[in-house]
């Protein structure tokens, strides 16, 4: 489960713009801070009487800042409009945040997945975000800043992955007990690989095994959808091809058979307060193992 989550390592043009601002503002701020402190020290030595006049006060405290801030204002406005630019025909992705995970839909491709946003390198994506429960915020610092996900509203954020890679993102607006464990991954792939992934998602092969029967018997389908099966619940994450995903529990665990077993058995221990009940005690150890194995093979 690797993936940088830093605004200081931009991986796309939008994040690069913001990163440029980070440098400008940090260095500019540092210079102004040091100069001000220098004047303070000069004042303390008693050798800068010229500082003790209202005229100097207005020059240093009002006129100079006004000039600097007007320039900064112009620059900032330029960046906002550059960020608003639509490049080509963006890939539309709908992201719906819930306590405490992310549903990710590709309406044009007919794909639904969770806690992972796949992106083709070099093509702008338009994220249309909202939430049915509380306010969340989507933040993948390697690609862009935050956007709030507000019940009753749809917000949009356009971002582009400039290179292939996997980056971590996280909910940035406090959304309740497990706000902390609400992460996701952005996975950028060359366009051909992305198309292959999308084709696989659409085909969504489902292996037959004992685990599937247990899944059905335990009523998992009441909350979860697995495309290509009768399971069509809408409460929890869509589990179609869950075996291909980076993490479980929205970035809480790495994704392999052991952690799948751990999650299915006792999600309340792994991520207390999430909506899924523990199945240890409901299902036998063998049954739990069979479910985990089946889920792992959804890939």
């Amino acid at each position, binding site marked *: 489960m690797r993936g940088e*989550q*830093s*605004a*200081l390592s931009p991986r796309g043009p939008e994040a690069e713009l*913001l990163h440029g*601002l*980070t440098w400008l*503002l*940090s260095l500019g*701020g540092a210079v*102004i*801070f040091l100069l001000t*402190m220098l*004047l*303070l020290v*000069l*004042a*303390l030595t008693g050798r*800068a*009487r*010229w*500082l*003790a*006049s*209202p005229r*100097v*006060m*207005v020059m*240093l*405290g*009002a006129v100079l*800042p006004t000039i600097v*801030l007007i320039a*900064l*204002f112009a620059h*900032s406005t330029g960046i*906002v*409009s550059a960020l*608003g630019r639509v490049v080509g025909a963006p890939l539309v992705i709908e992201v719906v945040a819930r306590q405490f995970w992310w549903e990710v839909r590709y309406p044009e491709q007919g794909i639904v997945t969770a806690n992972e946003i796949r992106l083709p390198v070099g093509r702008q994506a338009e994220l249309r975000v909202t939430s049915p*429960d*509380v*306010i969340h915020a989507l933040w993948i610092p390697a690609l*862009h*800043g*935050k956007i*709030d996900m*507000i*019940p*009753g*509203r749809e917000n949009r954020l356009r971002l582009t992955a400039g290179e292939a890679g996997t980056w*971590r993102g*996280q909910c*940035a*607006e*406090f959304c*309740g007990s*497990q*706000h*902390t464990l609400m992460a996701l991954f952005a996975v950028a792939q060359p366009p051909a690989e992305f198309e292959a992934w999308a084709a696989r998602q659409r085909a969504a092969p489902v292996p037959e095994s004992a685990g599937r029967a247990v899944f059905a018997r335990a009523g998992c389908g009441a909350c979860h959808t697995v495309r290509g099966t009768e399971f069509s619940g809408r409460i929890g994450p869509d589990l179609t091809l869950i075996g291909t995903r980076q993490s479980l529990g929205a970035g809480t665990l790495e994704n392999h058979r052991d952690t799948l077993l751990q999650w299915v058995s006792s999600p309340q221990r792994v991520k*207390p307060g999430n909506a899924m009940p523990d199945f240890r005690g409901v299902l036998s150890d063998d049954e739990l193992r069979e479910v985990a194995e089946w889920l792992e093979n959804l890939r």
Partner: protein
Amino acid sequence: MAGESAVTPNSLPRPEGELEALKAAWVQPTGWRFPTVVNNAVIGVLYVATALLFFVLAGILALLMRLQLAVPGNDLIGHATYNQFFTMHGTVMMFLFAVPAVEAMGVYLLPAMLGARDLPFPRLGAYAYIAYLIGGLAFFASLFWGLAPDQGWFLYPPLAGREQSPGINADFWLLGIGFIEISAIAGAIEIIVGVLRTRAPGMSLWRMPVFAWAMLVFAGMIIIAFPAVIWATILLELERALDWPFFIAARGGDPVLWQHLFWFFGHPEVYIIFLPAAGMVSMMLPAMAHTRLVGYELIVVAMVGTGVLSFGLWVHHMYTTGLPQLSLAAVTGASFAVSIPAGVQVFAWIGTLAAARRLQWEVPTLFILGFLFVFVMGGLTGVMLAVAPWDFQAHDTHFVVAHLHYVLIGGMVFPLLAALYYWTPTATGRKLSDRLGRWAFWLIFGGVNLTFFPMHLTGLRGMPRRVYTFPSGQGIEWTNLLSTIGAFVVAAGVLLVLIDLARNFRFSLNADSGNPWGAGTLEWLPQDNFATRSIPLVTDREPLWTNPGLPREVEAGQHFLPGTVTGLRETLATSPMEATPQQIAIVPGPGWAHVIAAIGTAGFFLALTVQAYALSLGFALAGLAAMLHWLWHGTDLGPIHPPVDVGAGYRLPVYAPGPASLGNWALAVLLVADTAIFACLAFTHAFLGLAGTEAWPPAGTVLPPVPWVPLLLLGGGSILMLVSASATSIALLLAGLLLALLGVGWDGWEWWRSGLRPEAHAFAASVCASFVWHGFHALVALVMGGYLAARGVRGRVTPERRITFDIVRLFCLYTAAQAVAGLVLCHGLPRAL
């Protein structure tokens, strides 16, 4: 030249017994009667101490949180507790420490600085303090039962709505904070009237100490800003308790409405905390540097400018809510603008240091220099955050945590600590320990930078706020560890300050400060339980520098009002601009009524929170009875003494009804706050109507007919109330009030008959919320009317003795006017949209 040769307002020798009578009038209650104390110097010290207690308590929560975040994946504190901790840390620091602490400094210092014997409404001040003490402690104690709010100090719905937060945790926030706000407004009224009306003769606005200007702007900002959060808490509580969907999108509400109301308060809040602290710095620096403040006028303009501008940039807390580009630009511009007055002040302080004759390198100076360092840093990161696109990255990360702590610790805690060391001699007669103070400074200064400087990096490397743990491998392990170490260094410094206070702070009302720093302002005059023996004639900004003989003259009784005229506690009321003596204002002394009223108020809100409705009603009635008792016996005493000479030929009345009476001023200020709440009510209607994409009002809504009859009743009632003044006719006034209330009731009935139900839709809920507000005013007006009638029956209302009458009449007229505005709003807006 000073002393004997100068012409003073009163001459020597003073009549025998004058001093003794003055002392007797101001004698302080002791022993079991101590809780009845109202004197501003005593209440002020208790107030500061209580605020410091909450600072320590909230600080302990911070230490526990830093321990949790010391290493990745830590499980020291569970998520549920952690969420309560950060909510309480923010809430307690903001509402129970920062605002009360600066307000407390005002209560303690202002009368002495202005040359008044006390604040104009000491019992109101004591009441506000006691309510804050009880309410604050009970609110904090909710942590021990796991009932503390856990939605963040901003309490955003829908997370704070009933569905998501069914427990009473959020109600603790809403009701607890609700009445702490009321206490803050009470304090603000007292400060505004005190600063504008009880200054020493000759202390025109331009001769007023900067701190008084700062507190005036502070109080004015409270009066405008706090109403927004009061209204927001009313709406959320109505939603939680009665399911009125103001913030529920599915029924026409909007969660963003809360954010606007909350931040319209929340951003000015920062300056509400900062301005008094800046004012204190502007008082201390000239004394420590033995030179006049450079650019006094500019500083005053800068403070007023900050106050005004701060109301225009609340949206910068909402950059990521999906605003249009134009709004982003406008708010960035406004946020930039507010940094200009701060810059002017910073260079005024640097200039004053540059002009120093002989800078005293003492503990207050250290804390002021620390303040300049930390605050300038915080200000600059604030400019960074004001750049909207950059805020997309930094928003809600630890970068913001670093920024806000630099601003608030730098801008408020450092000045407060400087002030503690600087003004302690006025309360105890001697300085605090120099040695402990220096150690404390270096530990706190080093610790703050060690805690918060690395935190900038923590945030940019991807750590959001309000998370109880973080993954390893993101390059934030060592920055978090440094922050944790730094937090404990700060704690060590604070501990030293507490030890110093415990060892060296011995409060006394008649301690002689001895003016150890050689300051020039009036709070360094010799004080007794009556404050200064006589009220000095002020001729410039640093009276003690211009006239070194002033302390002796004042103490000998050569200035104004050197005794008590009526045998009661008195202070001089002066004109707001030039401070010309106008009347002798009688200020109330100790009593139990305001204590019971405060317990009643706090008990009412707390019992309401835990849903003990009968108990809460009991508290409300007890509190109300105590308030009426206090008003009946302590206010509007009438012309009990003929006009009297107070010095320099000023013959002043002891009872002066009319627009200049202090009671009228207080009500006028209160009505400004009231109007601000009404403005928020109107904003609620307009925002919900305009921001949504659906039809407003919702399809199928039947609007009641145009309310001609209610308008007629309100108009007729208002005319009766207007004409009642000339004859001081209680009957006419009450008839007018009843007519007006009938109008409101009529309109409410029409809405109800048309099928309006508040649970159905946000439109109906906001119309009903207006009626809740009118209903509350009607209730208050009726209580006031009944009280007035009772006073009339007992012969306490006459054409001469009419302050109560005037005040009740003004409130009733306001109630009617507000009802008319509400009517126009509720009927007009849906027809216009």
